[in-house]
Every structure is written in C-alpha cells, then in structure tokens.
C-alpha cells in the first residue's frame, strides 16, 4: 500500500465567534475520523464488512453538519454501528438510539415530559419568580425518524399520535454533562428519570406498562421485530447491494430471514448472498462517490495520506463523510448519483489521481485484475491504445465498467 505524500496540515487557530471556535476544536477530530474510516475501507482484507459498516451508518444516519455531531460522528460509527454489523439488528438499534450523537442530532437530549417532575418544578420556580413560565415539553424529532427511517418505514400505518406518544416514551433520554451531572459520565447516555413523562403508553397498537427507561427499551425491542421493520430493512439492503428496484421475491426472502432469525444480521446477509437474484442483474449499480473513491484507491493500492486533501475529494465528488444533510441518509438509487456534473467530477478526479501516479501503475495489467469478467472489450482496447500511462489509468477509472458495480 502506497501512501501519497502528506502535506503540512497544521493551521493556527484564529480568534472568532465561540461557535467558530467550537467548530475549530471539532474539525481536526472529524477529519482524522474520516481519514481513519477511509483507510479501513481501503486497507481492509474484508472490504464487504466495511461496505456493511457504511450501509448501516447511513441507514442510521447522523449528520456532521450539525456542530454538536461534528466531533463525534466517527465515534458514533465506531461505537454504535461497527460492533453490531455482524450482530443483531436489535442491539444495533438500542446502541444507536442511546448514542449521544443520535440524541443530539435529532434533538432528544432536552425533550421533557409535560407532566414530568422536572416540568412541575420548572412551573413552580417560574411562578414564584413572577415570570412567564416556559412550559417544558417534548421534541418529537427522534421519535418520528426512529419510526419512519430506523424501523417501520414510512407508510407502515403509524399515526401522528404514535409519534407523539413515542416521543413521550423517549423523554429523559439524554446526554450527561449538564449542570449537576456526574462529570465522570459526561458525554455518555443519561436517562433523566425526572424528565420522563410518567404513565403507561400505547405505541403502534401495543400497550407498555413499564415506566422509566425500560419503557423505551421495550418499545424499541418490539419495533425491531416488527414485520414492517423486516421489510423496510430487506428493501434497503437489496436496493443497496442489488438494484434500485430490487426484485420483490428477493426482498421477501430477506425479510423472512430477518423475522425468522430475530434480526440476526449474518443470517440476512447469507440469504442475500445465496440468492440467485442477487447475482443476475444485468446492469450494475452506479457507484456512490464513497464507493467510487474507495474502489479506485483499492484498485491502485494507494491512499491519500493528507487528511485535508482526502476530505476535499469526498466533498468534491459529493459525499462528505457522515454529512448526508438529512436523517434519511444518502439516497441509494443510480439517478441520485449519475448526474452530468457528478460524472464529470469523477473524471476530473480520476485524471488528477492518474497524473500523480504516472507510470507507477500499469493500467493494462490492473484492468483484468480489478474488473475481472466485467472488463469490456471496448475498455480493454481504449486502455491499450492510450498515449500515456496516465491516460490509460484515467480511462480505466472513468470507464463504464469501473463506474458501476455488480452486487
């Protein structure tokens, strides 16, 4: 593995607004995390596992564009996603919804039950001080996205009341580090019992008699095993690895494997890999920018050692690490990625990368090794007739064969 030359990346912090200062504090961590992620993907001997990590991290998307998440997006993937990729969906779901990155991203850390002890206390304090009381209340963002994006999926039949009730279930799910918290626990999940909306609650037709933290855990357990969740996850996996509109039979098979195994993910992957339909698509998926960059680096056996420059590559090609811009994560259909401008940037980047490597890589030798039976006669000829090593590498990386990937 060759690491392209590292550029000097130290830069003096400049005085500015407090938020900018915080951004400057988080940014080096974010860049280092993004670089570590890139290197594991490029250097791993089990690249499919890395693709799974990226898939799940995108399914349970957080966004580093939110300042509170910038510094911990990498930690989130490492702590809540990666350990469970070969484990159970339920464990991953529980780890995700209790991770500070998710709680902060979807604003649950200050969601307070209107009938909680904390709410009553706040009202009393404000009225003795003679001020207009600000009512403590819920924030329904996490609850909504957990139902819509993380588990059941949109259109599965839950209502606004389910969202609101689930948000009440999740009141008190917060992050330690506020005034009065134990500093040793700062930055970790904290269940604030006095913020929790008391009482039994019914979510999506199931009554939960537990209270406190247990109530939320119980709801998540139920959601993780729901048939709608199984179908939702099966569809997304099949769309990611097989086709934009995956064959219904394949989706049903994966959903079945999911339900039968209680969400044991290796069982679901096995069903995916053993299904004939997985391997029978005619045109492969157009690679996402991340997949394109990683596969190019893997093909050429290089990575960029300069954090800022490798970050700039992701930014330029349209997929900054952990910054999908919405809790739905990055989209996953060809049409979301194959725009003219997006394609041209890949070509530009491929040409620049090829120029840096020059004759140190021989495209004609690499092509069959990298593309195998996908290497078309047309690409092989174009590479053979190129007028320089750089041009040959550019054509390999920009070829239709390399832009797409079969399952």
């Amino acid at each position, binding site marked *: 593995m060759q690491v392209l030359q590292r550029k000097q990346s130290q830069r003096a912090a400049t005085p500015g607004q407090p938020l900018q200062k915080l951004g400057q504090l988080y940014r080096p961590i974010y860049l280092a995390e993004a670089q570590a992620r890139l290197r594991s993907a490029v250097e791993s001997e089990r690249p499919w596992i890395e693709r799974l990590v990226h898939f799940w991290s995108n399914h349970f998307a957080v966004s580093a*564009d939110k300042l509170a998440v910038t510094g911990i997006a990498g930690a989130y993937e490492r702590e809540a996603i990666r350990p469970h990729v070969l484990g159970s969906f339920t464990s991953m779901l529980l780890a995700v919804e209790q991770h500070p990155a998710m709680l902060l991203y*979807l*604003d649950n850390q*200050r*969601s*307070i039950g*209107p009938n909680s002890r904390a709410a009553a206390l706040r009202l009393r304090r404000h009225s003795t001080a003679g001020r207009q009381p*600000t009512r*403590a*209340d*819920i*924030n*329904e*963002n996490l609850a*909504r996205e957990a139902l*819509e994006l993380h588990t059941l999926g*949109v*259109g599965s039949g839950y209502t*606004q009341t389910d*969202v609101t009730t689930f948000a009440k279930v999740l009141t008190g799910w917060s992050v330690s580090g506020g005034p009065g918290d134990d500093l040793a626990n700062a930055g970790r999940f904290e269940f604030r019992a006095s913020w929790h909306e008391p009482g039994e609650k019914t979510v999506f037709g199931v009554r939960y008699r537990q209270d406190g933290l247990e109530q939320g855990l119980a709801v998540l357990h139920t959601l993780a095993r729901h048939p709608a969740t199984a179908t939702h996850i099966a569809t997304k996996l099949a769309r990611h690895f097989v086709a934009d509109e995956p064959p219904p039979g394949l989706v049903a098979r994966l959903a079945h494997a999911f339900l039968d195994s209680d969400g044991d993910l290796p069982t679901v992957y096995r069903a995916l890999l053993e299904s004939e339909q997985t391997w029978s698509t005619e045109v492969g998926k157009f690679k996402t920018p991340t997949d394109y960059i990683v596969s190019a680096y893997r093909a050429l056996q290089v990575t960029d050692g300069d954090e800022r420059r490798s970050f*700039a590559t992701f930014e*330029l090609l*349209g997929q900054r690490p952990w910054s999908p*811009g*919405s*809790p*739905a994560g990055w989209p996953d259909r060809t*049409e*979301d*990625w*194959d*725009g*003219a*401008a*997006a*394609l*041209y*940037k890949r*070509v*530009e*980047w491929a*040409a*620049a990368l090829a120029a840096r490597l020059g004759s140190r890589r021989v495209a004609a030798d690499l092509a069959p090794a990298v593309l195998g039976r996908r290497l078309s006669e*047309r*690409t092989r000829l*174009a590479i053979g*007739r*190129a*007028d320089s090593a750089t*041009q040959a590498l*550019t*054509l390999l990386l*920009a*070829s*239709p064969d390399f*832009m797409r990937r079969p399952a």
Partner: protein
Amino acid sequence: MTKKNWNRREFIVSSALTASAVTVPRFAWARAPGEGRLVVIILRGALDGLAAVPPYGDPHYANARGVLALDKPGTTGGVLRLDATFGLHPALGFLHECYHAQQLTVVHAVSTAYRERSHFDGQDVLENGLRRPHEINSGWLNRALDSLSGAATRDAGIALGNNVPLMMRGPARVAAWSPSRLSDVDDDTLQRLADLYADDPVLSRRLADALANDAIATDASADRERVGKREQLAATLQAAAKFLVRREGPRVAVLETRGWDTHANQGADSGQLAQRLRVLDAALREFRFALQEVWEHTAVLLVTEFGRTVAVNGTRGTDHGTGAAAFLAGGAVRGGRTIADWPGLGPKALYQGRDLTPTLDLRAVLKGVLAEQLGVSANVLEREVFTDSRPVAPLRDLIRV
C-alpha cells in the same frame, strides 16, 4: 476559459452526441423561446412559514408562538411590515424591498396535497406535483418543460447542483452544473472517453452535458473559490445567473438549499433560523444584480415541503407541521401582494390542533406561474403536469403582462 478552448469543447460535445444518436446541434433554436425565466429554489427541511412571514396582526399570534413571536413592526428586531396582518422576518430586507417595489408576492397557509409529516415523502410530493409520494418518477417542472416548443432541441432547464432533483427529472432534456475545483482534463483524454462511452447511452449523454455546461459557468466557478461554505447558495445563484442571462441559455433553473429543519433553538429575530434567512436574502439580492436587466423577465419561486408546528416545542424549536409559506419574487412578478385565505391561529383553527391549517393548494400557484411565465397551456397543465388537480384552479395575474 479561452474562446479556443470553448470551440474544442464544442467539437467534443457534438461528436459525443453523434455517438449517442442525438444528432441535433446544441444551442440552436427551432423557434425562439419566450423571454420569461423561472427559478425554483427548493427549501429542504420545511421552512417555518410563521417565522418567515409572521402574521403579527393575528390576535392569537403572540400567544401561540411564545418565545418565537417577533415584535410588531417599527420596533428593533420587529417584523418588516407588509400589511395590517402580515410582515416579513427582519432578516428578509431584500425581499421586503421587492415587496414595496411590487416585485414580491407572498403566499401563506399554502400546502401540497400531502398531509403526513415525513420530510422525504413531503418533498417527493412537492416535486412530483401529484397527490401522493412515489406515484411517478418525474417532476412537474420537467413535464412542463417537455411540453414547450423548442424544449426538445436543447436544454430548456438546468439544475444547479451535483445531481438533478426529482422536480427536474423526466422526459425533457435538462442540464446539470455544479462548481469544480480540479484542473481541466486534457481534451485528447476527453475525446477518447467520449469514444469509450459511445456504447453507453446514459454515460455518453451525461458526459456531453457536462462538457457543454462546464464552459459557460467557469467564471462563476472562479468566483466561488473566494467564498466560504456559508455563501454557497449565493455562489450557486451567481452561476445560475450566468446561464440565465445568455440569450440561448436555459429559461428555467432549479436549485436547492438545506437546513430549514429547525427542531431546536430556532431563534426569533436572531439565532439559527434568522441567520439562514439572512443568507438566503443576501443571496437573492446578489442574484438580482447578477441578472441585470434579465431580472425584469424573471420570477423566482421559493417553496418548501410543509410548514412547522405553531407552538414552540420543548427545545425552543418547532416540529413538522402542515400549512406553509411560499414566495414569488422578481421583476416579472405582479407583486406587492399577500395571497392568503387566512385561517387564523386560534386553538380551534389549527389543523389537528397543532399546525397552521392550509387553505390553498400549492399547485394553484405552480399552475398560475407555469401558465403565465412559461406559457404552458391549461390543457397540458391538467393532463401532463399536475394530472389529478382539476379542482385546483390556477391563480391568475401572478405575472406582469
């Protein structure tokens, strides 16, 4: 970009097009298009219409909005007055000037036909122009372009950004452009790549489109080098202006901006949302200057997927709601008006007890704009563009004659 370079690019483009069996020459018009320009800016994440266009004259406004309520017009940080009921957020100074120059129409309590609260489905309906999400894999604006004479022979529309949003996807050919910071790929390599793509209809067309558009907005790209991320919207609008001022350039441009999903610490006259509105307003002001006299023929439509809750939530923000606000600005707009069948903010008036009740279907606005600004016929609007919208009559007199 030197002229010489442009000519070489043009050569590559036409050769790539020949290869993909699309043989019409680019930038050649069979019939001259109208002068009208339409720019659609999609505000993703659900802009809080009650913050952007506060109904300060509604008797329930201050109470219902709590800490998010803005002060009355004439006070520091107060609402910029439109009329006795509505104002604009104090960060929207340019739009306020437009209003008083009769170049801004504000539409309030408006919504698509979508009544759930998922961003992603909401945006799908906003862009597909139908009643439900995922019913069709094309956008209303593309279908409208497809119906226009001359559209088949050129890129009648352009999407600014890496990829084309659903609103602009569909049968009509559209261009896409976004700024790049890498140096040019040499022309010989591009020529060979065009040959390599010849068997691949999708990639060859994408490459041809990219090469054609790259040349036009290069100056805008250089401008962008100097601006930070915060001004990205402004830079993208500058690039859009470069396309729109060209006589043979596209007549329709679409771009998007994110970050309107203010669930926490939304702020009132200052804060997170105020900052975003300020950036938007400044970008529009610069856009107007960049367009010069073409501004007189331009209508800029700002739309979002839905509104937000009337009441503040537990984290000083707002959650997903229903009724929203939309803006129509530009020299072509018959402005200085607020269009709203105002439902009020009293507790009983709210949709499901929490949201601004929508009283106008957004498609009435979209139909009116397409008809008057681009000349899309009523027949096409009913049959091709907004297929199940017969009861929704287009708004009239949105655009100057």
